[in-house]
């Protein structure tokens, strides 16, 4: 494995002349990972809540 490629934080953040390109791609990747974890978890929570509301309503009717 080759060593650390940057000697300072600012050099790392700058990414040579490609600051925008590199960080835009990693930003998209971060959004992609987050959205695809949040979406299924949210779907599941909504389903459980809906079913619990339904169960309570049915219990009240009886």
């Amino acid at each position, binding site marked *: 494995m080759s060593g650390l*490629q940057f000697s300072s934080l600012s050099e790392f953040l700058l990414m*040579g002349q490609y600051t925008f390109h590199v960080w835009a*791609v990693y930003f998209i990747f971060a959004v992609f990972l987050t*959205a*695809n974890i949040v979406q299924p978890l949210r779907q599941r929570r909504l389903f459980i809540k809906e079913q*619990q509301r339904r169960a309570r309503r049915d219990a009240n009717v009886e």
Partner: protein
Amino acid sequence: MWLWFAKLGSPRWFYELSSKWLPWLVVVTVALITVGLFWALLFVPEDYQQGHTIRIMYVHVPVASISLAAFPLMAVAGTITLVWKMKLADMVAKCTAPIGLWFTGVALATGAIWGEPIWGTWWAWDARLTSQLIQFFLFIGVIALRSAIDSQDAAAKACAILSIVGAINVPIIKYSVVWWNTLHQPASSYSMDPQSANPPEVWVPLVIMIIGVYCFFALILILRTRTEILQRERRSQWVMDIVAQENK
């Protein structure tokens, strides 16, 4: 063999089995992607031609290659749905579509950002780019088709057929770089040979990222499928028990 097959098709069996394996999959996915990202961002040497944009490869290549696995998966699940009427297969097919759309979209977007400094253009009607764009629209088509048909069984059949027919595009994307030598370069080889263009410090982190993103794909597909199972089986007792146990 047939008993095993019938069991595998049982949504409840899949749900319970995946409950056991999910934590391990999360650990493996997080570990691989974390290692891969640190390696790609901090340790991969700057490319002599494209400088730091080499780091874009560690996002673009894994996402793009797995976007090619999603459509065949949907076509296989569709075939199983049509031939054996397995309910679980249709649930997997349904959950694959939005994930495949995400992967294809991110592959196109990151590819455009990489293309701008390296090729001098965000977009070109190159064979690889165009066939990948067609895949993007095919995923939208499958999702729209399913939401347009009210009957669950009819939607399952229609989507299965569209997925099988649409899968013809996958080998076109895969071999577009060989058949039409336009802009997008063919896949580079992975080799231990020191004379090779890609030394291990370049391709090892790439392999780690590819496996990590594959695990991520499996993880989010299982998560979505589990909710789909609960929704379709909501009237059975075992789902009601899960709903009742969950925190209010």
